[in-house]
């Protein structure tokens, strides 16, 4: 699908860059334009994402076949002619979506749009803020559509700097600490990923159809085919030590983003200090990149290692679920509570992934989408109360249901969705994840279900302390939620309810791709065992 001769994935990825340039050109005095331009740009992005979503052929699997990818754009980006001792260097501009990525593309567009609405009352250097937000948007979108590892890595890293500034300039009191911590943690992960990427590059060759010469490649799909691994190269073979090391290096890179215990400590800091819209993006999209990366890259490229490390992964998932929930329960800062609830909920995603079967995987990816929308709501809700009361201390509130009834209503939807109430989207995905995982890791799953109880406990307890009981005199005059805030929250609430009642809308998109992914990962190991 093309517009003006340029593919739709290129449009959806680079549209924010155009917006960024436009925002930078607009004079500073014209505050209206600086706000509306990003809104329009991200709005168009949502439209494009919806077009992609509904034109997406649900029967095609993708994952490791070029034919199964849709909206593919493939061109040569870098082509350095060969010298005898180096060979030709080819980097492709290779984008495409399958069931795994299309849900994330939709989520990214949606959350970016909501984030712009949520940024409406930013006053400090608005231009710079919007420019950074749009740059971040390009980075996020690029990660989800890139099918060339080099391209993927560039997008992955492009996000770091805007995120640093967005937290560091527009964040809360401890913003500097939170921003640098985020930056360093993520960079640590990505240099490990870089080394794994280079090792893969030198292990995988494809034949250039036009000249017949063997060339090294960054093409992810080529890396997924064991036949392309050059015999004798570092990562050739199956179940070798170096493959496990490379898998672990990649895993750490992704785990920091998810974040998986023990790499999670940047998350509460970053979330608490980031401005509302950035917390929304952080929880809504950035955390998904970690799990997306594992599913897109680690699993199909290293099926042997994925199977080898599946139990440790399930154990990490258990830790994330229970430890995250316990930490959340101990918080008195509402934002921190929700930050830890993210750790817990991402644990569910990991558990679904560790299941290595279709139910679990579908549950995991669906949970990624649902967590994106639900947590975005939760952070928006925190933003609403913080803008009014300038505190997030749960215990200082009470009886807000009386003064802010509409706010209480929407908050209840979000809280119940987060604790997995049937009828709301979170339930379906959590149920699928646990269902899938139960077949593979019985004990771990049973232990993990403690997380559900704990989640219900801290969510309901927070709800009770803030909204029920005696109204606190201090907050008697708080105005209820306004139209702009509702316009950000209501679409998300609708999605949460619709997907809760009719999950097929999303699950249909995921099934064939994830079925295929499970097959790839499952057969990856046995194929390997054949000499």
């Amino acid at each position, binding site marked *: 699908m093309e517009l003006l001769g340029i593919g739709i994935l290129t449009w959806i990825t680079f549209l924010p860059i155009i917006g960024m340039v436009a925002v930078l050109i607009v004079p500073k005095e014209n505050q209206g334009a600086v706000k509306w331009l990003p809104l329009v740009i991200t709005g168009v992005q949502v439209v494009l994402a919806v077009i992609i979503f509904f034109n997406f052929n649900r029967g095609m699997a993708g994952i490791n076949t070029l034919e199964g990818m849709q909206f593919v754009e493939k061109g040569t980006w*870098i*082509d*350095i*002619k060969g*010298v*005898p*001792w*180096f060979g030709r*260097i080819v980097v492709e501009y290779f984008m495409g979506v399958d069931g795994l990525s299309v849900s994330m593309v939709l989520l990214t567009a949606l959350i970016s749009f909501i984030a712009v609405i949520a940024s409406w009352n930013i006053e400090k*250097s608005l231009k710079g803020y919007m420019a950074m937000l749009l740059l971040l948007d390009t980075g996020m979108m690029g990660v989800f559509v890139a099918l060339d590892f080099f391209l993927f*890595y*560039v997008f992955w*890293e*492009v996000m*770091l*700097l805007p995120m*640093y*500034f967005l937290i*560091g*300039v527009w964040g809360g009191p401890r*913003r*500097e600490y939170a*921003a*640098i911590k985020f*930056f*360093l943690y993520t*960079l*640590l992960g990505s*240099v*490990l990923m*870089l*080394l794994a990427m*280079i*090792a893969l*590059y*030198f292990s995988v060759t494809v034949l250039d159809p036009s000249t017949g010469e063997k060339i090294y490649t960054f093409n992810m799909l080529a890396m997924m085919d064991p036949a392309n691994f050059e015999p004798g190269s*570092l990562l050739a073979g199956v179940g070798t030590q170096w493959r496990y090391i490379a898998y672990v290096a990649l895993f750490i890179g992704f785990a920091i983003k998810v974040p998986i215990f023990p790499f999670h400590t940047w998350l509460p800091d970053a979330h608490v200090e980031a401005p509302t819209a950035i917390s929304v993006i952080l929880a809504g999209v950035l955390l998904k990149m970690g799990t997306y990366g594992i599913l897109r890259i680690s699993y199909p490229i290293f099926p042997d290692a994925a199977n080898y490390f599946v139990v440790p992964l399930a154990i990490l998932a258990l830790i994330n679920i229970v430890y995250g929930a316990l930490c959340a329960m101990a918080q008195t800062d509402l934002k921190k509570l929700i930050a830890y609830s993210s750790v817990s909920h991402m644990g569910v995603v990991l558990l679904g992934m560790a299941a290595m079967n279709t139910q679990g995987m579908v549950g995991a990816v669906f949970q990624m989408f649902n967590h994106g929308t639900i947590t975005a709501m939760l952070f928006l809700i925190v933003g609403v109360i913080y803008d009014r009361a300038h505190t997030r201390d749960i215990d200082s509130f009470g009886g807000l249901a009386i003064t802010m009834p509409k706010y209480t209503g929407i908050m209840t939807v979000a809280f119940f969705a987060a604790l997995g109430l049937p009828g709301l989207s979170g339930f379906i995905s959590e149920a699928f994840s646990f269902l899938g995982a139960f077949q593979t890791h019985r004990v771990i799953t049973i232990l993990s279900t403690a997380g559900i109880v704990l989640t219900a406990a801290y969510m309901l307890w927070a709800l009770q302390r803030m909204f029920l009981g005696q109204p606190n005199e201090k907050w008697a005059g708080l105005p209820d939620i306004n139209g702009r805030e509702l316009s950000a929250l209501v679409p998300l609430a609708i999605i949460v309810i619709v997907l809760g009642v009719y999950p097929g809308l999303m699950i249909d998109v995921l099934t064939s791709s994830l079925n295929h992914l499970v097959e790839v990962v499952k057969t990856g190991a046995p194929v390997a065992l054949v000499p």
Partner: protein
Amino acid sequence: MVEQLLQSLSRFLPETTLTVALCSTVVVSLFLGRKSQATLFVALAGLVLATWFSFDQMGVSETIFSGMVAVDPFSVFFKLLVGLSAILILLFSLYSSEVQSTLHRAGEYSALILAMALGMFLMAGASNLLMMVLAIELTSLSSYILAGYTREASDSSEASLKYIIYGAVSTGVMLYGISILYGLTGATDFYGINRALTEESVNSVALLVSIIMILVGFGYKISAVPFHFWTPDVYEGAPITITAFLSVASKAAGFALMMRFFKVSFIDANAVGLPTGVWTSLQGFEWNKIVAILSVLTMTLGNLVAVWQNNLKRLLAYSSIAHAGYMLMGVVVLSDKGLAAVLIYFMVYLFMNLGAFYVVMLVANKTGSEDIDSYKGLGHRSPLVSVAMVIFFISLAGLPPTAGFIGKLFLFAALLDATWIWLAVVGALNSVVSLYYYVRVVRNMFLRDPEGNAEPILFSTPQLAIVMLLLLPTLFFGLFYSPMVELANASVMMFGIR
């Protein structure tokens, strides 16, 4: 003999041009009064010509003056690099308050820069131990004086003195090493040394001692740990233009010499069964392991100490030490890939490091301070220059989509391809550390409010044009790096080596 000499002279055109330009600056400064920039322009013209003539030598591969100097793609590459950075330094000097306030000595300044460039041109091509020492000395002597150029400032004189003392000691040690090597092999030219070493076995302890002593000299030139002690003080005390020149060109010339010395003299020329572009060290003499240790020490110490610096020039000094450590990784792997990666890194380093120094200079011109604290709120006072600085720093830290990433990528690629994995991991972790101190400056520029004076700082159009001249390649080569890689791949070829 005469014919050979004339032939050699025709290949010596870039160096001759520099010599003529050097003499002209002296004459011009005598006649055109002492208060003009004329000498700077004469030097600039000379450098442009010399660089152009070097460019003309592309594709040539021979030795001249009976094997004293090699003119091959490798030396041409470094001549271009040195020439280009010298041109940029002279452009910087046109806007440097340190140089402009001492215009009466501009003749001296220009002549010494040319002398330094000449020394570095010779270093790029030297293929004889004697030529090597001469070239190093020519470069060093000129840079001692330039480091103390602003003699009104006491730290400048201190810098110069420290530089001389360290320089004298390390050259002495190096010469001693050279004499041992000569004693062992009976040859002074690199090819002869190689022949001697492959034909007969020599006392390996003596050889090791001599190599370590020679490495002291190289280590001093490229400021590798533990021969780096002069670097922070000299970088801090010298005028910024000279600091920038030392950090790029001097280091490049040192690397050129070192790589040629090791690659020509200390590889097993008769080794069989190796893939093209991969060499092996002489039997039983794995000098690359020594270089690997140097590399680890250099980058780790450079990065760790840089974290504690509060003066931006000192910070960049330690960062340049760290970068020397990264580049040494490319020497360790004993392959053309490694050398090509070093060359790529130097191209990138030229733009990003000179860019960072140039911004420091511009800001110091206006605020009179190189303290990191004086950068507080700079992002609001001078957005364009601050954004440029952020990009230079991001590139120095090695993040995409900047050219610095490409430099690191190829270095790591060369290491992983040769399965030096632990070294690659050390290098990667080091770049995480480096991010911390670069970001400290970025934090002051954008995350902190200005202290006291919050007036906008304005720069003239030519000043900003130079920023752009350095900024655009830093970004462009990050996304489209084919030209850089192709040039590097073509330039690793040294005369007489397959």
